């Protein structure tokens, strides 16, 4: 290893730092400095003026596209209303969803939990995806695989999803499931609660409730109105034996959902987080 020799140390030459001011070097600004500043400043101004317009447009575009991934405009904005004072916790909506959207028991899109009011009265909460207006899942997705449709739905593009599961981490409602395995199971809810209307999702992507988007889109194309005509309405809404679920277009002031929301007190889950969910709950007695 004689190849490696320490480089000879160069004695550092100290430059004298302070020079006593003399009339020659006391110029605050030489002519040369002045010209440089003048040209430099002028060039900067010209550059700023040229770039101002495109930069402004760019900045506007950035602020207008927030929150991320919103698609154009639509006459429709779909919302769901769930009446907790009516819900009897029968799980029909859970099972109908499983059959229609072909989900496993541990990957349910629509779940039921039991909670109680401050007075100890038990009530049941069912939770689909809340299709938030400011959806954390959409904001964090690194590939825009989940996005806002113009009609307010938070949709998934299974062909883009890389399966990083950041959306699961970000969703405040635990509404997302991951395909940990390739599916080969028998669906226990078929045929009693319905038949699958959508393809199973491949291994390695995240999925969630779609508000039965396939029914909405096909229904509208056939002149049906989601929330009114059963064929265009989410399975969970149709099956409810006590009519605790309603679906419809909140942009239409005469829709059932609009009338309920404008006439009755409703809550949304974790409103403090600013996610603006599109699922409204009518609270049970004794809550709120």
């Amino acid at each position, binding site marked *: 290893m004689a190849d490696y020799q320490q480089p000879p140390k160069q004695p550092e030459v100290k430059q004298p730092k302070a020079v006593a001011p003399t009339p020659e070097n006391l110029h605050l600004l030489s002519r040369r400095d002045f010209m440089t500043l003048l040209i430099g400043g002028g060039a900067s101004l010209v550059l700023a003026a040229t770039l101002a317009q495109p930069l402004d447009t760019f900045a506007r575009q950035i602020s207008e596209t927030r929150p991320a991934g919103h698609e154009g405009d639509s006459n429709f904005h779909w919302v769901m209303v769930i009446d907790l004072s009516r819900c009897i916790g029968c799980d029909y909506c859970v099972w109908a969803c499983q059959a229609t959207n072909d989900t496993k028991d541990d990957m349910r899109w629509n779940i039921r*939990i039991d909670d109680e009011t401050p007075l100890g009265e038990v009530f049941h909460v069912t939770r689909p995806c809340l299709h938030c207006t400011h959806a954390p899942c959409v904001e964090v997705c690194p*590939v825009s695989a989940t996005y806002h449709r113009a009609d307010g739905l938070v949709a998934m593009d299974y062909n883009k999803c890389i399966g990083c599961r950041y959306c699961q981490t970000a*969703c405040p409602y635990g509404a997302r499931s991951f395909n940990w395995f390739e599916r080969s199971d028998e669906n226990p809810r078929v045929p009693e609660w319905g038949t699958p209307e959508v393809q199973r999702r491949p291994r390695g992507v995240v999925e969630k409730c779609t508000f039965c988007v396939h029914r909405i889109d096909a229904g509208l194309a056939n002149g049906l109105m989601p929330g009114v005509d059963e064929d265009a309405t989410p399975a969970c809404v149709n099956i409810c034996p006590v009519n605790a679920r309603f679906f419809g277009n909140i942009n239409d002031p005469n829709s059932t959902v609009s009338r309920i929301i404008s006439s009755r007190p409703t809550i949304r889950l974790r409103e403090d987080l600013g996610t603006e969910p599109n699922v409204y709950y009518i609270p049970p007695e004794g809550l709120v």
Partner: protein
Amino acid sequence: MTAASHTTTAKFRPMGVRHTSLAFKLWVGFLVLALIIGLVSASQVIMNGLGVTNLTDELPWGLWITLDLSSIALGAGAFTLSAAVYLFGLKRYEAIARAAVFVGLLGYSSAMLALFMDIGRYDRFYHPLIYWNVHSVLWEITMCVMLYTTVLLMELIPIIIESTPLKNIAILRTLAHVLHRFMPVVALVGMGLSLLHQSSLGATYGILTARPVWYSPSAPVLFILSAVAAGAAVTMLATVLAGKLLRKELVPEDVLFGVAKLVGFACLAYLYLKLWSWAATNYYSQVPERQLGSEILSQNTPYNFTFWFGEVLFGALVPAIFMLWRRTRSNRNILILGALMIIAGLVINRWNMTLSGFVIPLDWSPGTRDVFPINQYMPSLIEWGVAIGILAYGGLAFTLGIRFLNLYPQARELPPNEPVKATAEAAAPSTPVAPASA
């Protein structure tokens, strides 16, 4: 690096021993075995899906994300020491900058391996390059990590060409020279990228409003400060360990001590923000959700103990003293110990950070009942296997790098009058090569 080093390495002359000793063979054999364990485990994951892990929908990130966060942070030495050389003009740190770049590349490539294993669709790993979501911190991280790994490769390629017979090929030699010329610019771009994503890794957790233990503006800054400390510590550790095993002084002493001091001060800065971040959120204010979260953590996990002893006391405070007090700093063994403590503290921190947010269940139900169970996680054997494989990759690459690359341009043999244990020299005529430590 300098013209001198180009000419002095005229023959192919690796840094380490020129023949393979038994110890070296055993060490490489051990690493290859670990690598095979990793490959077998990874094939299980790729064939059967991520269901073979112990991750769940409630706790979807675990050991591999911890490994990913840790190796990126441990690779930050490249960014810190490049900043010293190219931004602050501290030219003497060029002596250790190459090693930092090499360790950095190992860290980043290990992290990319861990991420690759962690995503559900390996066939779509490139999607962030095509489908942009500029609003996503994870998109920003992916882009920065890819670009920065490219930067590190550009910094390393001249070293590889110069250290191996590749330098006899004229076009490669020209390439090395061109890359070398642009190095200051490349290094500065790299620093910007590194600064961005090291912080945004903290923001990955810090921006999530629904998880009160994570939601914090200090998370990004804590991530970069700990990365500065730990990244430089790993580079220092690698240098000291390799120097011990090769019985050489790989970098001048003042450079080594300078890095140690930098590590010490970074630890102090990290501690300062960490303590204030804790005090502001857990001591001087009472946000109900956060309090509940802290209670859950302290009752169900070793979070409190590992936070105070693993992260704060033995992960930052004690090693900061080791690095800053002249008497401890000048002892190589204490330097090694201190660096190991910082690395352990960082890994514990990344584990705690990842797990704490998931262990505390989300509570979105409007009622008063505790509906949601606390989430538990222990990595499965296959997860450990993959992690061991990734570590083995890092160890093997480091071993070969130390042996075949000219990573320390100012290395010199220790003069005979300097204290080298005579027994060790007599007993071991062949020099073992440094084991990897990251």
